[in-house]
């Protein structure tokens, strides 16, 4: 029988995959995609908690709606910055960044 644990372990797997992508990739667009995977993982956890912990209140689902709103806003601003960067550099690796290089 599939239960709460299945869903949150699935969300943990997705979260860690997203985190790995954010750490181990250099292309800004791919890093943005990895962040989206992390946010989706949080949404899976939220909706699962909503279903199994507070099925009457839908609090988790509402939280997920807000996470999606923020995700859309982040991507829009992120792509605007990437386009600005592209205009300056006109180089092949759009938004090539190494987040862990300091």
């Amino acid at each position: 029988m599939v239960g709460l644990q299945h869903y949150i372990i699935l969300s943990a797997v997705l979260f860690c995959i997203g985190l790995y992508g954010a750490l181990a990739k250099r292309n800004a667009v791919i890093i943005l995609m990895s962040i989206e995977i992390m946010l989706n993982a949080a949404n899976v956890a939220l909706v699962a908690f909503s279903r199994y912990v507070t099925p009457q209140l839908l609090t988790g689902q509402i939280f997920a709606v807000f996470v999606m709103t923020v995700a859309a806003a982040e991507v829009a601003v992120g792509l605007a910055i990437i386009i600005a960067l592209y205009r300056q550099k006109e180089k092949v690796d759009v938004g090539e960044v190494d987040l862990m290089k300091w």
Partner: protein
Amino acid sequence: MIWALLGPELLLAIFALAVILLDLAVKQKGVLAVFSIVGLLGSIGASLALWGTNGIALNNMLVIDKYALFFDVLFAAAAILVILASTDYVEKLKGFQGEYYALILLATTGMMFMASTRELVSIYISLELTSISLYILAGFLKDAKSTEAGLKYLLLGSVSSAVLVYGMALVFGTTGGTHLGVIWNAVKGLNGIADNPTLIMGIVFLVAGFGFKIATVPFQMWVPDVYEGAPTPVTAYLSVASKAAGFAVILRVFFEAFGRAPWLSQSWGMLFAILAAITMTVGNVVAINQTNIKRLLAYSSIAHAGYIMMGLAAVGLMESQLALARSGILFYLAGYGLTNLGAFIAIIAISNNTGSDLIDDYKGMVRRAPVLSLGLAFTLISLTGLPPTAGFVAKIYLFNAALQSGLLWLVIVGVLNSVISAYYYLRVVKTMYLGEPASTERLSSSGPLRVALTASCFGVLFLGVLPNTVIQVTEAIKFLVS
């Protein structure tokens, strides 16, 4: 009633919209700065008018108490100084002045909401409002460095907020609610970590997510690059207001939701104590070798986050010390805020003329700009923590709070760190006063900027000489719900 309680935030949001519209109508863009400052002053007025009222509204989510109002005033005052200091900068903005001021107002609105909500969804969304506005502001100049700063800030900020929201999801899943009060009710029934390990993991995620906003080690890696690349007024705003907003949220969340169960609060108190020690040491040690003044102040701001975290540790380790430690944090944030803004304002004026942020180019600055140099020297002395400045009183006061909670070792680390920091702060002062100037050309600065610098220096002096007036206020600040 709801409208009145929302006054400070609502006013700013309306002014932000109005600034954009006004931008279309007026040719003389200086009007926009004046208009934004009027909005911020109105917001401060609204906060002061509400001072003393205790209100909870909108399904328990909005909480207006002295704590929230104190931060409202702090954020708005910081925004005013930043806007005044931006006047020399606006010609670089390529005709986007209206949006620049609007985004500063929106970021301030978000910070005010952060300080006045006690519900995780609202905290998350207001934190994102602040962050997204700041990502844009960091990349506002659209030159190579600024854009890269914006991109790095956005990517790392989004990763950290994804971690934060996952942590919030875990806390919600284990406690069944997103209100801090509901969470506390669930936490109350637990006796130890074994009762609910997932909750602990959620709290660790929260520390990581919030830790990014206040730039504690190991989530400080974005600070130097972003501070260096962002427009300097935005850097000043980031280092002061955004950090203060992070602390405002952390203190409320951790005290109200997790702070009154000793087994739990002592764990996070100790976690913050260790992070504080590491953060201040890393910040100060790396600052020593910096040659760029903005990077130097970036590492110095990391170190100061470490000092302020001593207050959080004090609250966690001894609940009875809440009043003293909270007051210490608030006073430190006010004093550090004025000081750091003053330092950045002086730097804006100097580098606008010389076009360089290198410390070597500050040689003999006292002969080229005596007033600016005096202002910068004074604020650097305050950052070091020497009398008669706000930094001195704030450090003594906060270190005392940590001592009362039995954190002697941490206070010793803090004092040693202050000694290290004296070296690099005073080296800048020495460069300015004893070095040979590269040229004898006098520097010019605009009137508003001089007003902002004077105001922050007098504020620093006032807090240093007559701290009791402000300490009386901060000691009277309580959480409405506790």
